[in-house]
Structures are given as structure tokens and as C-alpha cells.
């Protein structure tokens, strides 16, 4: 597969897309909190993959890691500020839970919405670098070394970001998530402590946070 990708074989990219579009799409959603943006990121990721094809290492296993790395970078450029991320997460969580109670909506689907809202709430409490590490290691199940490779950072940094993220989530869990189970909403208003977690948080746009209308 790697050889075919490096050689720029169109069929290899078709297969790559079929195998990983969904993975990349969901990963991008966690990093942007917006499904439509996630779709853009997904599409851009595969275009980037095509462009960068000759950088693929000929040796190695699945190309999932490589794609997740590209997707993370792409998503980062979509949602450069935490302020925008939070706005999007708030809107998305609200949209998930404020959806009308369709009688025909199966219970599993309702649970899914609720879980998604809870996840967004948790992710919004993190700084972007923590969020990236967490989504790669936890959702995508990457090893620390793999996450480090995907992000281009040292393994120790992955470990420390992950442990910070966990600590924050634990705190959040104590105070927030219990209530989220019944009426989720992004309630954590506290700025996450730490140096300049939102730098120029102006001007970076994700989609307009169209609250409650999806």
C-alpha cells in the first residue's frame, strides 16, 4: 500500500479514502466541534495526503497514523483559537441535546447524542494541544510514540499533555459530567488555568456558531 501511495496510484488513494474517510471525519469533528467543518477537514486531509504522497515512509504499517497527523494539522488551522472551539462546542452540544424528542427516535440514538454532547463538553475544557493528544491516544487508540510521531512532538510531551488532560477531565467529571448526564450543556465557564491558553483568539473562524438550528 505504501509503495502504491508513494507512486501516486489513483486506486491506492481510492482505497485509502474508503478505509479512512470515516475515521478522519470523526477525528476532525472532535478537534473542530463542527460536523460541517469536519467534513471540510476530511476532504482537505486526503487532498493533502495526495500532495504529500512522496513523503510517506516506504516502510511501516497502516497509513491511518499518517492521515490522522495530517488531519490534526488541518483541523488546527481551521480552529486556531480555543474561543472559537468553545463556541462551536457549546453550539454543537446544545444542538445535540436540544433536538426535538422524536417519539420514533430510538433510545440508542438519544444516548448517542447525549454521549456526544458530554464529550464535547469535556473537550472544550481542554487546551488545544491537550485535546489533540487526547483524541489521538484515547479515541484513536494510538500509542504515545505514534501520537508523538503524528504530532511531531517528543514522546515526553505527549505523556505530560495527556496527564494534564486527564487531570482536568477528572476534575470536570467530579463537578460537571454528573449533571451532564441529564441536561448536558457546556457548563464549564472557568478559563482553563495556564499560560495564554487562548492567544489571539480573534479573527479565526470556524463556521458561524449557529446555535440550536441543526
Amino acid at each position, binding site marked *: 500500500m505504501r509503495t502504491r501511495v508513494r507512486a501516486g496510484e489513483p486506486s491506492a488513494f481510492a482505497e485509502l479514502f474508503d478505509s479512512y474517510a470515516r475515521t478522519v471525519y*470523526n477525528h476532525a469533528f472532535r478537534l473542530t466541534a463542527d460536523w460541517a467543518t469536519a*467534513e471540510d477537514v476530511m476532504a482537505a486531509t486526503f*487532498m493533502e495526503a495526495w500532495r504529500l504522497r512522496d513523503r510517506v515512509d516506504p516502510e511501516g504499517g497502516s497509513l491511518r497514523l499518517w492521515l490522522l497527523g495530517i488531519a490534526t494539522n488541518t483541523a488546527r488551522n481551521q480552529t486556531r483559537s480555543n474561543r472559537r472551539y468553545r463556541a462551536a462546542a457549546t453550539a454543537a452540544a446544545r444542538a445535540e441535546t436540544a433536538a426535538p424528542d422524536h417519539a420514533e427516535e430510538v433510545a440508542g440514538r438519544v444516548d448517542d447524542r447525549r454521549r456526544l454532547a458530554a464529550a464535547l463538553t469535556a473537550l472544550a475544557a481542554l487546551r488545544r494541544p491537550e485535546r489533540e493528544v487526547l483524541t489521538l491516544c484515547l479515541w484513536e487508540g494510538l500509542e504515545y510514540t505514534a501520537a508523538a510521531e503524528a504530532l511531531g512532538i517528543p514522546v515526553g510531551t505527549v505523556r505530560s499533555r495527556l496527564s494534564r488532560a486527564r487531570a482536568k477531565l477528572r476534575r470536570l467529571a467530579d463537578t460537571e459530567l454528573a449533571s451532564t448526564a441529564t441536561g448536558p450543556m457546556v457548563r464549564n465557564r472557568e478559563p482553563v488555568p495556564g499560560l495564554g491558553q487562548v492567544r489571539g*483568539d*480573534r*479573527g479565526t473562524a470556524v463556521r458561524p456558531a*449557529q446555535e440550536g438550528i441543526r
Partner: protein
Amino acid sequence: MTANPSRQSPAEWEESAQLLPLTTRELPSGRHQFHKERLMARIQQEERTATTAAAEPKARRFTMPRRAFAVPAMACALAGAVVVGASVFTSDGEGTGAADGSVLTTSVGAATTKGVPQLLDQISLAAAEVPDPKAGQYVYIESKTANSYEKVVAGGSSLAIDKLHRRQIWMSLDGTKGWLIDPAVNESPEGETLSLPDEQGNVPVATLNGPSYDYLAKLTTDPDKLLQKIYKETEGQGNSPDQEAFETIGDLLGESYPPARLYSALFKTAAKIPGVVVVEDAVDAAGRHGVAVARLDETSGERMEWIFDKKTHVFLGERSVQVREDGGDSGVIKRGTVTNTSAIMKRAIVDDIKQTPTEGG
């Protein structure tokens, strides 16, 4: 599971899994195929051109598809040039500001709380009557803008720059149609459409964070009510409610066309936000000196400044200056760095997209 130290322990996993439920979704129906076809079309197209013009296409980095839709109506903050990390993706565009070049800096002007209400009052009185647009017309705004931001590259962070450049935006009164010419964002010099709805068929709904002219025209001009609305609708966003309120008003002052009554009201509203200061000397992106109404973001150490002409109190532009040492996630943003700046050069009503106001008019 083995005791692999580079993996999380099962206990850790379970704990996190409870916090972060593993739910995934399919792409909307038809979208998988749609994007796959686009990808394949692109690959084929490049294969074809590669045979004629070798290497050239690969030099171009891919830009976001339909990126324009990611620009919230008019208000993607005046410094919208940061929009979607354009400069990272368009390293070859002319005047796009590759991720190098010199960092914009300034001396950090002294701030004082003295005279804040008086200045805001004068500014509010200086609100000029602007002609009401007619149905079918467009708001046109031309600005000069530049940004610096932290860019994470392999092995660390560095400061990336969008060089000072001209930005032109046209928006229909209801915010559903528009055009943007901004070399830091666009792939081609003609610019790109902002006309919505988006690919899911959603027509954008104007909000405080993405207001259309129609939306602004209906907004309350009662400062107390307006402030209440701002706090309510931006709840949970930004680094603090007060900073977020200040920045929201700042966004409305920049790349938008507030009716005169609202324009006045915005400053009366800003006067009610705690922590607002006056900076005696500030320079806009066009090099014009003025007096600034400002507020420090305590979390990021960045100060947002609204710059006004000292005599006429006409709004010149906005900028954000790093005031505290070592800002950004990794401290690459030094004190005195201008993280973004935007000067409003023209603000007018025109009859069509890509039409510019006649000189002097």
C-alpha cells in the same frame, strides 16, 4: 492487554472512556462518494497537468475546499485574515505572507482608566449618520490587515505572519451572499464567494458573532439590554465574560456596517464593561496614530485596542497587542508583538458584488 508503558493502562482507559464516550458517526448520506469523486478528479487532473508542466502543481499547497463557507457572514472578526489558517496553506500566493518575514511589533502604550467614560462618550457622539442601504445592495468594506500567530511545526512553535495586505469584502444585507478578496485567504486573485447556503443546505442565521446588516438594524440600541444580550449569547466563550463582551463589540465595529444609532449604543455599552482603559497612542494597520479604547485579556496577556482619530474620534481600526511577556501556548509571542491589526479604509454601500465605491463617494 500487556503492560506496555507507552500505552495507557486498562484502568486509565476505562476511566477516560467513561468521560469521553467513543461515539462516531457516518458522513452525511452521499458525502463519502462526493468527496471521493472530488479527490479522484483532482488526482486525475494533476496527473494530466504533471505531464505537461512538471512539478509546478505540487508546489501549490492545497487550500480548504469551500473555505469561504467557514467565514461567518460579515463578522468573522475584522482580522478575518486569520480565517482558517490560510497562510499556512497558501505559502506561495503573492503577498500572502509566508510563514516568515518580520514580526509586527509596537511599543506597548501606557494604559489608564482615567477619562474612559468621557472618551467613549465623545466617540459615541461622533457617530456619523450613514446612508441606509436599499434592498439588494451590498455592504462593502475595505481594510488593511496583518496578523501574527503561533504556528506549531515539527519540534516546536514559531511565529507565523500574514503580511500587511488589502482585504475587501462584500456582503448582502441579509448576510447570505458575499464575496471576499483577501490574498491571505483566497487561492486565486479573483477572490472567492461567500454566498451561502453551505453544503448541507443550511441558510446562515445571523448572530452576534456573525451579524448581517439586517440583524444589526434590528438590534436593540438600549445599552443595558444590549450588554445583557451580549453576555447571554456569548456565555461560556472566551477567556472571561467581560473580555468576550468587549471583543464582541469590537467585532461589530470592524468589518460591519452598524447603523448610526447602534454605533453610538455600542460605545455606551462598552462603557459599562469593567476593565476598559484608554491608551493614549496607538497606531493602526495603515500607520495612522490615534487614541485607543482597550481591554486586557488577563488570560492571554493580549490587549485589544480600538483605535480612533484623536480629533474627530472616527474609528480607524483595531489591533491586538501582546502586553504580557511570552504569550501563546509556548511563549513565542513576545511583549509588543502585534498579533493582529486591521485598519478600515473604506466602508460603503454598493449595488453589486465586486463593485467598489467611486472615489470620494
